[in-house]
Each structure stands twice: as structure tokens, then as C-alpha cells.
């Protein structure tokens, strides 16, 4: 293998993952068009990446980053969490609260990962990769406690439909970065625009539930 062919293989692998993470594409033809590569190469690459679980498809046939890719992302963030756990927990939160639920990585910012869009009258649109700057007076995220953030503007412009409203986020840490300082956390969060006390209590209860499901499973698997 030459250095040029190694670079080309990595470039195509990475470009395909970036593409499917940001756009709805279903066919090798669309991949070839978007990435300006031969159709035959796109066909083989997509099939191979599906085989490797680096790509998968949703119920409508759209290509998505696969379980293995998500696991790489979690590992890169320092989180020892099975990627397969996140979507069911997020969906449970959404289905029990009616509000938009998501995973996020919390550092000095909140960056959104897996999302289940809510169904309530108040639900907000939050998208993967969306980044929120935390307010200066943001409360510290205590381990095991649900905490509440009010966010006004996403830091980045991309796909922001919550620009003009206050977004109230209830979050609970599921895991910490395996590095020593626990300042980077994987959180489960529920967002809505108008949080009454009763709604907030329900959301907090559900967040604790999913944390319990998560912890119980981890304990069983460690046993």
C-alpha cells in the first residue's frame, strides 16, 4: 500500500461518515455525487462500511453512522459506555415526557448527540451537533443530581430554531470522561420552552429512572 492510497482510503472513509451524519442520503449514487467519486467505488465503500457496522440504515433506508462509529466517538470522548444504550434511553425519555430528549457532551459547552424529537405542544427542535454555550452562572453539574440550565442562544448558527426562546434543559450525568478531572460528562437531557414545576418534576423523575436503568445494566454486566 502506498501512502497516497492510504490517504485516499482514510479520506473516503471519513468523508462518507461526515456526509451521512449531516445529510439524508440513501444510495451509492448520491454518495458518489456528493463526494465526487466514481459510482462503482461508492457502491463498494458503502456496502463494506455497512458490513463493518460503521454505517447502518434507518427505517426509511437513509444511511447513518453505525454502532461501531458511535462507539469510536464515545471512546474518543473518554466515555466507556455502550453505544447501543443511548438511543433506547433517549426514546424512553421522549416517550414519557413528550419533550425533546437528547444525549450531550458537557464540557464548558453542551454539544448535542442522539436526539428524539418531542411530541408535546411545547417541544423544541434540537439537532445533533448543535452546540450551546453555557450561561456564565450555570450551576455545577453534581453527580447523580438533575440540574437545570436556561440557554438563550445556540453558539452556532446551524439549524437553530430555538434562537429566540429560552430553552430549559434538565440534565443528568450518566458517565464521566475516564481521564482524571470529571469536567467532561455524558449527559441525558430533556429540553422544553416552558417548564412548569409539575413538568420539571416529571422530567427529573424520568431522568433518574433512565440513570437507574443504565446503572443497573452496567452492574449486571460487570458481574
Amino acid at each position: 500500500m502506498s501512502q497516497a492510497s492510504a490517504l485516499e482510503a482514510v479520506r473516503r472513509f471519513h468523508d462518507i461518515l461526515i456526509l451521512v451524519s449531516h445529510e439524508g442520503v440513501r444510495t451509492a449514487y448520491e454518495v458518489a455525487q456528493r463526494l465526487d467519486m466514481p459510482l462503482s467505488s461508492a457502491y463498494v465503500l458503502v456496502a463494506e462500511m455497512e458490513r463493518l457496522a460503521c454505517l447502518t440504515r434507518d427505517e426509511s433506508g437513509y444511511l447513518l453512522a453505525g454502532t461501531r462509529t458511535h462507539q469510536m466517538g464515545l471512546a474518543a470522548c473518554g466515555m466507556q459506555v455502550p453505544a447501543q444504550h443511548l438511543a433506547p434511553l433517549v426514546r424512553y425519555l421522549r416517550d414519557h415526557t413528550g419533550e425533546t430528549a437528547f444525549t450531550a457532551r458537557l464540557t464548558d459547552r453542551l454539544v448535542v448527540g442522539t436526539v428524539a424529537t418531542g411530541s408535546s405542544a411545547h417541544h423544541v427542535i434540537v439537532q445533533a451537533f448543535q452546540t450551546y454555550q453555557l450561561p456564565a452562572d450555570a450551576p455545577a453539574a453534581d453527580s447523580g443530581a438533575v440540574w437545570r440550565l436556561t440557554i438563550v442562544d445556540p453558539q452556532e448558527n446551524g439549524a437553530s430554531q430555538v434562537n429566540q426562546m429560552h430553552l430549559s434543559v434538565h440534565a443528568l450525568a450518566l458517565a464521566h470522561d475516564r481521564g482524571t478531572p470529571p469536567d467532561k460528562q455524558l449527559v441525558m437531557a430533556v429540553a422544553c420552552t416552558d417548564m412548569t414545576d409539575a413538568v420539571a418534576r416529571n422530567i427529573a423523575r424520568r431522568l433518574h429512572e433512565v440513570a437507574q436503568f443504565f446503572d443497573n445494566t452496567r452492574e449486571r454486566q460487570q458481574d
Partner: protein
Amino acid sequence: MESLSRIADLLSCFEDRATWSVSDLLSRLKIPTSTGYKLIKALQSRGLLINASRGLLALGPAAQAFFYAPVKVVAPQSVAPQWARGQWPQAERLAVSRVAQWNNGLLNLVSTARFRKPPPYVVGFANASLSNPWRIAMVGSLVAAARRQRDVAQVLVRDAQDDAGLQVVQLQEMRELGIDLCILSAAASSDPRLDAVVSDLAAQGLPIIGVDRRCGGPDDLVSFVTASDLVIGRVSAIWMAEFLGGKGRILMLCGRRDASPCLMRLQAAQEVFSLHPGIEIVAIEFTDWQAQQAYGAVSRLLASGQILDGIWSDSGLQSIGSLQAFADAGFKKGTFPPHTGGDINIMYKTALQMRVPLCALDYPAAMGAIGFQTALETLSGRQVPRRVETNLEVVVSRGHETASVRADMLAEEKVRWDREDDFVHAAGWIPGGVRTRSGPRLP
């Protein structure tokens, strides 16, 4: 293509260890040194790997971005929230949640290292039947996924025609033909002969992936790919009860009495209806998911003078027969009672044309393809969830949402006027589509 496999292996190595020296990494993966160095240099150039410290490699910022990649693509149609559509000037909260309980199987991961084997693979698909368009689409999605894979030498597909005895014979035949893995959609949920042969095959070390309908003991299946039948039954029943204001005479149209999805949906719906004393269940009819049988059942009830305020149906496959019966009984546009059940395009077309209040949760036929993906992961020795639930979307006709049941998508957005009547929604990517054998007719 070996380079892609090596790239994935290189990046996956960091899942259980944050840093690696180059020599350890290449040694573990048995990658030739020269090739390995070139791939690592290329991965570093894209920020997928970085030099951490003292000659150690770590995953880089470009790999961190994979964490944020969506697990469900943003639908190309506008999925604007209700308030953005101006439909809910008075903000309301959900009264009842969509799910009643948590299923631990969703988080249980199964080690499949014992099933790992090198390709090529021969995969068997023991299918319960091809008796309706949904089942044909499900097989289509599975076969399309298999055809994309060079590692799959052959897929043996068998149709048991809803006969558990025939499926027993087919399973034994596939075993004799040397399949490496069996994907099973059970012809019956509790047939002793079928349960026995499934347990026997599992005990012999054959990995079995269940899809849609299950049978056998809890550990006989490596994984079971489905959608939440409890959510389908519960949400559609909540909608019906709330839409009728908590009182009315309801006919329940179910699928097959020996199929696990049917029984779970029915039980979940009955639990909801039992909370509404004003709801009267006129009859529970099993239709085998056939429009003609639903047509007969509804026609008989209407002919006997029964007043039906709502038709709860566990699938659109039979609901379409009910709509036909109401049309033939002289019901005009806008006078049909509310129905549940989607799945098939003609159901959405008809409901919208006849202005029928509708709530649907499409049971994804794409679970065939997702089952196949789970099969591939099993043969590759990767961990798989004990239970895989595909996504369900709640679809409601415009103006017919209730306090607890809001649409993820309106029926007006869901319908495909450009597609054939028997087009099955949520069937994944099937190049060229799937032609089903017979399409129900429009009222």
C-alpha cells in the same frame, strides 16, 4: 477493501484502552508495519488519531465528532412542531405517556464471540408467511440488505405459510443445508413443536436472530428485532379513547391470535380501554391481517344494525377492509368513524380522501434489513442487544390530535400520492421497490 477493515479496526482498538503505542497496535491487529504506519499517518492527517504523549496514539477530535452523529436522519419533510404550525394556541401538556414500562432487554448486550466465523456466510431466513404486503416488504428489505454484502454467499428464504409444522420442517432442512445463521420470524408464538426445534437448534450452537414474531425460550434467540408492540397498542388505544371523549362503541380488529405482536398490541389496548368505563368493546375479531376478513366482520356488524363509533385496528392491513365495508354500507365522505392502523399507502390515501380521523404507528418492515444487519454483527462476533426496537412514528390526520397523542408526522405528510396503493411505509432501502401480489382496492 481490506484497508477499510483495517481503518475500522485501528479506530476500534481505542474502545477499551485510551492510548496505544504504534507497535502494540499493529501487533494486536496483525497489520504489516509498513502498511500500518501509512494508515496511521493518514488517520493523523484527518485528525482521527493524534499523538497523545511519549509516542502513544489516541483518538483525535475528528473521531469525537462521531459521538454526535445522528442515529435517525432528520426527515426531509418538514417536521415542524405543532406550535409552529399554529395549531395549538393554548399550550397543553401531554396527559398520558406513550410507554407504560421499561424493557430491560433493550440495554442487555449479548456477546456473540462464540458465533464468530470467517465469511462467506450462508444465511437462512425462516419466514412465517408472505400473506400480506407488509410481510412481502419485510422480506424485500432483508434480501436487499443481503444482496449488498459480498460476504454473503447465499440467503435461503423459506415461506412457512403461517404453518408452524411446515416451519419446523423448513428449519430442519435449512440446518441440513449448512446455514451459518438463521433469521426467524415465527409462524406461531407458542407451538410446542416449533419451540422445541428452535431450542434444539440454539442448543446445537446455531445463532438465531428473531424478527417481528418470536417463539422459543428467552435464551434461544441471540437477539430479537422488533418494534414496540406495546407502544403501538397503547398509543392507538389512547388516541381512540380520547378522540371519542371516553365513551363509545368500539370494534377491535386484530391480526393473528397465534402471533406475538398481535397479542401484545391487543393486551396493551385493552388495558387502556379498561380505564374508560364509557368505552364498550362491541367485538374482538381476528382477521389474520387480511383486508377481506376485516371487510366481512365489519359488514356483518353493520348489517346487523350495530353502531360502531370507532374501529381500533392493530394494523392498516385490515383497517383498509373496514373502510371498504363502511363505504359499501353507504357511509359518505366525512362520516366514517375514526380508525387506527397505517403501514400501507392505501390506508393513508383512503383516510385522507374519505376524511377519516386516523391514528397510525407504522410497524417498520425495515426490521428485515435491521435483522440482517444484526445477523452480520453476530457472525462478526460483535456485541448485539438482546432486543432491538426499531423506531415508531405516530401519524395522525390533521386536526385529529388529542391531549395525549400528538403526531410525529401528519398523515397528510406521510402519504405518498406518487406511490402505488400497496406501497409499504418504513420498509428501508429497497432498490427498485417491492411489488406485492395484490393491492386492496379503494372504496
